[in-house]
């Protein structure tokens, strides 16, 4: 097997503000050409981490390697071979789109004629050639975002750092922009670190996802791994909409303080499963049904039979036509292979443990 080529590597990277740990001992290895998404709630340190890779923020401790070379605090941002797109896009307000895109090229001392060609080529690639003579204030949010990406691209960097580049767009535009971004990244095959707090975006874009909370990386893996095998209750509830159901189990066969987790889409009326399939059956006291067109969300609890009080949500796709009367108790079930166990005290995943 080939040794994995490393695009960016972080070793025990920390950043403190006073005694607040914004980034706390992060180890991360990002492969060459990979799109890694940093996902986490607001304030968990994503931007700080990205800024340290860019060289805009000085790490309190730890090491950063880009393309196999150690970059210390005294390697300035311009020498790191990176391009960054800020959440605000940071376009130069008094320069036209063309001048904005040309700016990094001017810095590198490229001859004028060549700059013009390259700007045109890049602008065409992002479909903004029509706006070259406009100023940023004359562009919509989506157009600005493309200008910012375009400016990052022309530098031909080793690594792209993108800080919530789609956050300012409306939902519809965000979908198309996400698709464009993904195709673009596939085409250029460049190592990319993408920051977002939107888990749908993370799942859709990432080759791998690193889930962060309170300055620590909780889990890193493919979207599927993170979704199906969360390492702890934080990841389980942060990823997925609606989040994973967690109910306490009181079962002598299991260690005390065990949480049982299952995804709302696995929680279906019992009649829906083939008779041979091993399932865990619950008595589901339905409180409320939400009709959302493609799905129905059913809220209730499974508080009998030694389960905790927590609200449980079932997500029924439209093809499950079973009538769900509010206020009644129904038989619902979860396939055994979809059950996950967690430690209630630490939140950590517990392997094995046969079903209750």
């Amino acid at each position: 097997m080939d040794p994995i080529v490393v695009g960016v590597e972080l070793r025990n990277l920390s950043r403190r503000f006073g005694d607040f740990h914004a980034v706390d001992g992060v180890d991360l290895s990002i492969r060459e050409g990979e799109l890694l998404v940093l996902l986490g709630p607001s304030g968990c340190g994503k931007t700080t981490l990205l800024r340290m890779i860019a060289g805009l923020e000085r790490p309190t401790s730890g090491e950063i390697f880009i393309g196999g070379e150690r970059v210390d605090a005294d390697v300035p941002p311009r020498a790191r071979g990176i391009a960054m797109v800020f959440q605000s896009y940071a376009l130069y307000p008094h320069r036209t789109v063309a001048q904005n895109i040309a700016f990094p090229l001017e810095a590198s001392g490229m001859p004028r004629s060549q700059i013009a060609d390259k700007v045109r080529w890049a602008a065409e690639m992002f479909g903004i050639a029509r706006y070259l003579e406009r100023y940023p204030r004359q562009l919509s949010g989506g157009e600005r975002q493309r200008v910012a990406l375009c400016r990052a691209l022309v530098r031909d960097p080793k690594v792209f750092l993108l800080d919530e580049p789609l956050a300012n767009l409306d939902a519809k535009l965000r979908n198309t922009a996400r698709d464009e971004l993904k195709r673009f990244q596939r085409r250029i095959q460049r190592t990319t670190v993408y920051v977002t707090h939107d888990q749908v975006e993370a799942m859709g874009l990432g080759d791998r996802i690193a889930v962060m909370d309170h300055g620590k990386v909780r889990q890193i893996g493919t979207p599927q791994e993170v979704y199906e095998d969360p390492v702890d209750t934080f990841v389980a509830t942060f990823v997925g909409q609606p989040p994973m159901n967690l109910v306490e189990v009181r079962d002598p066969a299991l260690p005390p303080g065990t949480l049982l987790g299952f995804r709302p889409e696995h929680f279906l009326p019992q009649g829906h499963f083939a008779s041979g399939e091993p399932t865990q059956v619950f008595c589901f006291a339905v409180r409320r049904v939400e009709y959302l067109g493609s799905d129905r969300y059913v809220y209730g609890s499974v508080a009998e039979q030694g389960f905790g009080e927590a609200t449980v949500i079932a997500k029924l796709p439209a093809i499950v036509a079973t009538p769900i009367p509010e206020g009644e108790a129904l038989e619902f079930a979860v396939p055994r292979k979809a059950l996950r166990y967690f430690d209630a005290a630490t939140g950590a995943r517990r392997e094995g443990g046969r079903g209750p």
Partner: protein
Amino acid sequence: MKRAGLYAAAAGFMLFAGFPFYWMLLTAFKQNRDLYVGAFDTRHVPWIFNDPPTLEHVRLLFGQTEFPRWVLNTLVVVVAVVVITVVVAVPAGYSLARLTGRWGERLGMGIFFTYLIPPTLLFIPFSRVVALLGLQNSLGALILVYPTITIPFCTWLVMGFVRSVPWDIEEQAMIDGYSRLAVIMKVAPRLIVPGILTVVVFSFTLVMQEFVYALTFLSSVDKMTVSLGVPIALVRGDVYHWGALMAAALVISIPLAIIYNLFIDRFIQGFTMGAVKG
């Protein structure tokens, strides 16, 4: 309907702002007979020319005072003070906002407090310094003293302004291949133009209207600035030469009004940038 109201309001303000100019114009060209009527003649209309206009006051101003000289002196002081203030306060304010972190704030406050010291407290030390440097009765004294007022305030002003300009853009330039120094020299100035203009306008205004220091440090008539020379030459005892005073004010204020109008948008932006940054 709404438009009409808007125009009416605008017209009102225009009258309000324009009236002093009109009054100056009237007074500057009225004959003395028309000016000093007293309260007895109730049929006299004060806001029109009742007698034909005259150039007598303008002749007095330009022929019998050093007015052109004062304008020149003022210009010299203005240019010197503006240049000194911009050269010192803009880099100082920028670096306090961007480079010194937490201490920048405290230093900035400290600098601002020096602006609050009343000038009257500073006369005695200033006259010592001025004497020591041999600048008594010369424009140099004003060029030395005025920046002590403009620099602290303008440093503080620029600091606040720079804070309101997002740092993103400068950081972006550092990623785009520029060194910190190159960013400061090439990128930052363009971003803080409104702040710089505000500094220019503030120092300019201060020098144009300052009276007390000028009175203290200048004694010869040919060294005076407009704000000092005009009242000294045209107010004799309790006799006000209203016509000539107004002529002087008019000659000075019209070019100023034009210049201010050219800059007013930027000036306002400089003061409100933090609030409306979009």
